C-alpha cells in the first residue's frame, strides 16, 4: 500500500512537472471553445489606458461581436519581458499584447508577432506617430502598431517658483540654471531642500540633452547600429547633465536611477522644487501628498537655443498580435477599435500622446499634459530601433555606468564615454 501511495505521489509530481512545462503561459485564453463562443485575451500594461476607456472599449467590442468575450488583463511593467517570453512560447498566448516601444523591435525581429503589413491602412496607418511606427517595423514589414507615446517634462512647484521670484518657467538652459540658483538662494537654508531632484542614472533625460546638442547615442548604418556615445555632441550632453547635478546639489544617488528610490515619492515629500519626470508621476506623488497636485505644473525640457524645447526621448507603447494567437482576425478587429478616433481621443484626454491620431487638442486641457504635447513638438527620438536594445535595457545598460562613473569622478569624460561606446557596440553585436 505504501508503495502505491509513493508511486502515486511520484506520478502526481511528474504530472505537475510536465504540466509546468507545457502550460507556462498561465492565464491565457481558452479560445478553442466550440460554436461561436470565443474568448479574446487582451494584455495591456498597468498605467497605460485608463479603466474607463478599456471598460467602454471591451463593452463595445463584445456588443459588436456576437459570442465573443474579452478577457482583459492588466500586466505590470516589472518583469514583463520574461512574462511575455513565456506567454508567447505557450500554445495559448494572449491575442493582443502591449509592448514597450524599446522592446518591440526585438519581438518583431524574432518573428513571434503577426505581420500586420496588410492591415496598416485599416488600422489608421495614415495618422500613426512615426517614431512608434518605426519601432514596430522590422525588415520592411509592420509587426506592431503604435499605441501611445509619452515623454518627459520638468515637473515643478508653482508656489516655490513664485516665492523665489521666478516669473515664468525657463525656456533655455541658462534660464533653467538661473532658476536653480534663485531657488537655492530662497530655500537653501533647509538642508533637505533640492532645487532639482536628479539621480545619476536618468538616461532618458541625458538622451534629451544629447539630442539637443544634435547628437545621438547610435547611428544606423544599413541594418547595423554603431554607438556614437563618444561623439562631441554626446559628451556635451553629459557635461550639461553634470552641470545640472552640480548646480542643484541634489542628494539623489549618483549610482541609481529615477526608480530607485522612486523619485515621485521624494517629490511628494515637498522638499523638491523640480524633477524630470513623466506627466503621471505627479499623480504618484499626489498619493502621498494630495496638496502637491494643485501647486505643480510642468514645462518642456529647455533647449540650449533660447525659446525652444529640447528634443525628447520618445517613450511609449506598441500593440501587437502574437503569431500563435488563435483569434488573430478578432484581434485585428480589436486593434481597429482601440486605434479608432474615439478611443484615441480618450487616450489624449488621459494625458498621453495618442499613437494613431494627429489630434492633440485634448492634451491642452491640463497644464502638465500640455507641457508634454509642447515638448513632443520639439521633435522626439526613440532608442535605437535594433532588436538588441531590449537586451541593453533588460540587462546591463552601459549608459548608466557611464553616467555614474563620470558624475562621481571615477572616470574622466573621455574614458567614461569611450568605455560606454565600446560596451554599447558589443551589445549591438550581441
Amino acid at each position, binding site marked *: *500500500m*505504501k*508503495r502505491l501511495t*509513493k*508511486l502515486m*505521489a*511520484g506520478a502526481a*509530481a*511528474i504530472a505537475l*512537472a510536465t504540466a509546468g512545462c507545457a502550460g507556462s503561459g498561465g492565464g491565457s485564453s481558452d479560445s478553442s471553445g466550440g460554436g461561436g463562443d470565443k474568448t479574446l485575451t487582451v494584455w495591456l500594461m498597468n498605467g497605460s489606458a485608463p479603466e474607463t476607456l478599456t471598460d467602454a472599449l471591451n463593452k463595445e467590442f463584445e456588443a459588436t461581436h456576437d459570442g465573443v468575450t474579452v478577457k482583459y488583463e492588466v500586466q505590470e511593467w516589472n518583469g514583463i*519581458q*520574461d512574462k511575455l*517570453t513565456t506567454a*508567447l*512560447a505557450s500554445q495559448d498566448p494572449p491575442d493582443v499584447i502591449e509592448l514597450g516601444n524599446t522592446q518591440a523591435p*526585438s*519581438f518583431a525581429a*524574432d*518573428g*513571434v508577432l503577426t505581420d500586420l503589413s496588410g492591415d496598416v491602412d485599416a488600422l489608421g496607418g495614415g495618422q500613426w506617430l512615426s517614431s512608434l511606427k518605426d519601432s514596430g517595423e522590422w525588415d520592411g514589414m509592420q509587426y506592431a502598431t503604435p499605441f501611445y507615446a509619452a515623454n518627459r517634462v520638468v515637473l515643478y512647484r508653482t508656489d516655490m517658483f513664485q516665492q523665489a521670484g521666478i516669473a515664468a518657467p525657463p525656456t533655455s538652459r541658462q534660464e533653467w540654471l538661473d532658476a536653480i540658483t534663485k531657488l537655492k538662494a530662497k530655500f537653501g537654508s533647509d538642508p533637505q531642500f533640492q532645487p532639482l531632484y536628479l539621480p545619476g542614472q536618468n538616461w532618458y533625460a541625458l538622451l534629451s540633452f544629447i539630442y539637443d546638442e544634435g547628437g545621438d547615442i547610435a547611428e544606423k548604418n544599413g541594418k547595423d547600429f554603431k554607438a556614437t556615445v563618444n561623439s562631441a555632441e554626446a559628451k556635451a550632453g553629459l557635461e550639461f547633465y553634470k552641470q545640472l547635478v552640480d548646480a542643484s546639489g541634489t*542628494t*539623489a*544617488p*549618483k*549610482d541609481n536611477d529615477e526608480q530607485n528610490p522612486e523619485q515621485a515619492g521624494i517629490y511628494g515629500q515637498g522638499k523638491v522644487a523640480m524633477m524630470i519626470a513623466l506627466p503621471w508621476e505627479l499623480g504618484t506623488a499626489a498619493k502621498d501628498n494630495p496638496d502637491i497636485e494643485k501647486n505643480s505644473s510642468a514645462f518642456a525640457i529647455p533647449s540650449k537655443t533660447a525659446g525652444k524645447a529640447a528634443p525628447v526621448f520618445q517613450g511609449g507603447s506598441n500593440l501587437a498580435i*502574437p*503569431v*500563435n494567437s488563435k483569434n488573430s482576425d478578432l484581434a485585428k478587429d480589436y486593434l481597429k477599435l482601440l486605434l479608432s478616433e474615439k478611443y484615441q481621443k480618450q487616450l489624449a484626454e488621459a494625458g498621453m500622446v495618442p499613437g494613431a491620431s494627429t489630434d492633440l487638442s485634448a492634451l491642452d486641457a491640463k497644464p502638465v499634459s500640455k507641457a508634454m504635447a509642447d515638448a513632443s513638438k520639439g521633435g522626439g527620438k526613440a532608442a535605437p530601433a535594433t532588436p538588441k536594445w531590449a*537586451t541593453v535595457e*533588460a*540587462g*546591463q545598460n*552601459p549608459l*548608466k*555606468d557611464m553616467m*555614474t*562613473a563620470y558624475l*562621481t569622478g*571615477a572616470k574622466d569624460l573621455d574614458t567614461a564615454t569611450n*568605455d560606454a561606446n565600446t*560596451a554599447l557596440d558589443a551589445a549591438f553585436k*550581441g
Partner: protein
Amino acid sequence: MTATVHTAVPAGTSPPAPPRARRRRTVNLGERAIPYLLLTPAVVVMLVLLGWPAVQVIGISFRKLDLGELVRGELVWVGFDNYTKVLSEPEFWTITLRTVLFTSAVVAGTVLAGLLIALLMRHLSKPVRVALQVTLVLAWATPILAATTVYQWIFDQQYGILNKTLVKLGFDSFQGFSWFSSGTSTLTVIGILIVWQAVPFVCFTIYAGLLQAPKELYEAAAMDGATSWQAFTTVSWPAVRPLVTLATFLSVIWDFKVFAQVWAMRQGGPDGESTTLPLLMYLRGIAGRHFGVASAVAVLMILVLVVLTARYLQLLLRTREGDIS
C-alpha cells in the same frame, strides 16, 4: 509488502522437491527486487525532476534557441557553436576567474566565521548562548531579497548608516563614499551579505559536531596540561573535521551559483565588474533571449563546479557510511 506475504505462505500444501526449489528461486528474486522496487519512485522522481532538465539543458546547449525558435517549436542544431561563442569571449574567462575567486573568498569567510562562532558558543553561558542562537536563526530566516535591500540601505552613498557612522567616528572621507563604484568593492559588500546569510547554517552544523566530543576528553586534556590551542587541535578538531569538510563543499556549491543577491545589489555593475557566471547566464538567456548560449554557460558552470569539488566527490565515492574527512 505483498512479496513478504508470499514468503509467509506455509510450505505444507505445496508439492515436494523440484517445485519447491523453483518457488525458492522466485522468492529470492522477489526479495532481491524489493529494494529496487522501493527505490523506484524516488529514482523516477529524481530522474524526472533533476535528470530530465539536466539532459534538456545539455541538449539545448547544442541548439540555436532564441525566442523565435522557442515560439515556433523549431529544432535547430548548431553543434558546438554556442560553446565556441562563449569560450571565445575574453569576458567569459574574466568572469569565470572572478566567480571562482569570489566563491573561495566567501566560502573561506563563511566557514571560518561559522567555526569560530561555534567554538565560542561552547564557552558561553546558557542565556547568552541561546540569545546568540536565536540571533543566528533570525539572520538565517531573513528572506534573501529583504536582506539584500537592508544591505543596500546600510551601504547607501547618501543615507547609509555605515557612512554616517564612519563620519561620526571621525573618518570624514566616507562622507558620500560610494561602496558600489568598483566591482571589487561591490563584490565585497555582496560577499559580506552572503557570508552573513550563510554563517548560521555552517555554525549550527559545526556546533552539533562539537557537542559530539565527550566532555571527559576536554577534562582529560586539561588535566594533562594542554593549552586551549592543543585542546582544539586534539579534541575539537577531530570531532568537527568531517562536518567542516561537508560545510565547505556545500558552501562551494551554493556560493558558486548564487544569483539573487548579486543581481539585486547592482545588476552586476558597475561596467559589468561584479558580473558572475550565474549573472552571465541570466544576461545571455533571459535578457538576451539566447537560450542556447545560456545553456552552454550553464553546462560550463557545471564543469567548473565539478573541478572545484573534485576532491570532495573523490572522497564521497571512496568512503563508505559517509565517513568523510
